[in-house]
């Protein structure tokens, strides 16, 4: 385990012969791929002319998917390392509220507010990890406690300081800040303006933005999602640290015997999950300009669902970041697509449950094929 996975000699008699096609197909993210194709086929058939696949529609479900992806990457790596974090949703609310309090209420510069919030949240992540490691308690319980503690503070602080639970005006104080656009900005405006001018994208018909394209750039939220997915995938599959993550989640004791710093890996993964949640929160706060005490409600489960649809094993030691990203894509496309298809919105949970169930069943078959377990 001290080296990255070696390319094994194919003529090794201990390894079962396998065709190249089979090897390319049978992988953790196969379930996610099948699901993605199925979901897009479904919506292309039933919601093609509903606006779902015009520029505005594509951006709409891409943003929602990107949100899921950001928290799914963190949750995925942590789950592979054998732990859960149920405080992700509360962390999102807490981080956003901290940024609002620092920048609006206390009047500090926005960049400082963002950096401080990141530092606080990553520290809380580290504390979560530390408690789990030190006490040996299930991370499920420890982070459930953080879920309540953080949510409580997220309601208490603004209620005490400002007598309200939503703090607005962040967009105004973030004006001209150097760090804020990295989370709340957009890229590629000239390209979209040109697309609007030549008529590929619709333009606003009236108001102050008349003539501008309805989609005027790619939000940084999506860029963050892509960067995090690539980072997570490379970290997990191409580095020694990635092997440690698998080992820590597969069998922590065995991993310790061969010299893997299991505790360090797990705590770092808790910190990374907190980092992802804070990225989510910062993007949201910078885009909408306000922080609310109810932000991020139930997002921890949405992250876990995306990861599980993507083929990761709840018990750790097995999974894929690309799979989790596909799971997030499926989740986002289904959630927004049902609206486009004109489905009664209370049925959303029914669809979600059905998809989750089929994904897990399919993933179990695929995993058995890969690992050879019965």
């Amino acid at each position, binding site marked *: 385990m001290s080296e990255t996975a070696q390319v094994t000699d194919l003529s090794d008699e201990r390894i079962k012969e396998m065709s190249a096609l089979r090897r390319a197909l049978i992988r953790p993210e196969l379930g996610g791929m099948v699901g993605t194709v199925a979901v897009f086929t479904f919506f292309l058939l039933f919601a093609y002319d509903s606006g779902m696949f015009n520029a505005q529609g594509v951006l709409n479900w891409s943003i929602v998917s990107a949100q899921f992806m950001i928290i799914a990457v963190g949750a995925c790596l942590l789950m592979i390392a054998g732990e859960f974090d149920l405080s992700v949703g509360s962390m999102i609310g807490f981080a956003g509220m901290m940024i609002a309090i620092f920048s609006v209420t206390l009047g500090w510069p926005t960049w400082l507010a963002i950096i401080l919030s990141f530092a606080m949240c990553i520290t809380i992540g580290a504390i979560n990890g530390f408690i789990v490691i030190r006490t040996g308690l299930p991370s499920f319980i420890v982070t459930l406690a953080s879920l309540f503690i953080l949510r409580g503070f997220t309601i208490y602080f603004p209620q005490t300081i400002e007598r309200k639970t939503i703090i607005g005006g962040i967009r105004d104080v973030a004006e001209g800040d150097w760090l804020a656009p990295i989370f709340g900005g957009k890229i590629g405006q000239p390209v979209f303006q040109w697309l609007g001018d030549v008529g590929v994208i619709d333009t606003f018909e*009236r108001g102050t*933005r008349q003539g501008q394209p309805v989609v005027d750039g790619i939000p940084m939220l999506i860029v963050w999602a892509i960067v995090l997915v690539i980072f997570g995938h490379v970290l997990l599959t191409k580095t020694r640290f990635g092997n440690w993550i698998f080992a820590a989640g597969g069998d922590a004791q065995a991993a310790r015997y061969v010299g893997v710093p299991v505790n360090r890996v797990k705590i770092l993964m808790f910190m990374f999950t907190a980092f992802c949640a804070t990225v989510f929160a910062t993007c949201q706060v910078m885009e*909408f300009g306000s922080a609310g005490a109810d932000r991020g409600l139930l997002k921890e489960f949405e992250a876990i669902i995306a990861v599980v649809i993507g083929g990761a094993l709840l018990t750790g030691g097995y999974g894929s970041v690309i799979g989790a990203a596909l799971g997030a894509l499926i989740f986002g496309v289904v959630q927004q697509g049902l609206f486009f298809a004109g489905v009664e919105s209370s049925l959303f949970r029914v669809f979600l449950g059905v998809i989750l169930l089929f994904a897990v069943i399919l993933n179990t078959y695929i995993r058995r094929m890969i690992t050879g377990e019965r």
Partner: protein
Amino acid sequence: MKKALIAAFAAAVALTGFVSASWAEGERYVLVSHAPDSDSWWNTIKNGIALAGEHVNVEVEYRNPPTGDIADMARIIEQAAASAPDGIITTLADFDVLKGPISDAVDQGIDVIIMNTGTPEQAREVGALMYVGQPEYDAGLAAGRRAKDEGVTKFLCVNHAIQQPTVGERCRGYADGLGIDLGDAMMDSGTDPAEIKNKVLAYLSANPDVDGILTLGPVSADPTIAALKENGMAGDIHFGTFDLGAEIVQAIKDGIINWGIDQQPFLQAYLPVVVLANYDRYGVLPGNNINSGPGFVTADGLEKVEQFAGEYR
């Protein structure tokens, strides 16, 4: 695995049955609310737009964020705009968050009416045609003045939606109407019925001089009724509530609740559809905002309310 795939296919085919024939001829209006799935009050809104859609022969859709997350609601408004309906009817639960998506929809050429939550000023600012609803602070103020006349001196306001600043305005208005300071009279009760009941019981035993209760909707009113029945204060303490529901109507009848403030949600859903349809068809538009409430419902004349409580009232 083959079996699983066949089952998946069968399920997909079955589920497509739920995809309504939503691309019929005629105008299409989407109502986007901020309420989580668990809030039964919004059922009246759903019934209201469905009936309006039938009456004026247009297609209507109801959308809401499942958990009540306002940021998710912003995405739903963007989605609704992308599907190019003739009009959007929506609430302004958080002005900062929703201002962008709503004014984008307006600029795209979609007519917007703000209903329920928000203020007439905010509605004008985002470029909406009008506001249909009950101004929250004014309704609370009217309730407070009435309660003062009825002898309330110290009160408890049970707030089950503390994260929604507009709902809290009702408590503030009520306190101002009574002419006393809000102080810590506003309770963050949460939404779980058992918790609300026990918090109210605890508060009343710790503050025996409280002689008035205000609840902000069925979510907080129903458990409060149960609490008062339990500690024997039912009918003795002054009890006013916002909104109506089956339990509240029964309690008004039983003399436990003095009055319910009806903001008449039915009108908030029904009227925007009618207004939008007539605007699209004939270009006629009422010249002002529409106040759907407040209307005080007391034990007199409960018959219609009782008959349609939870459905259209």
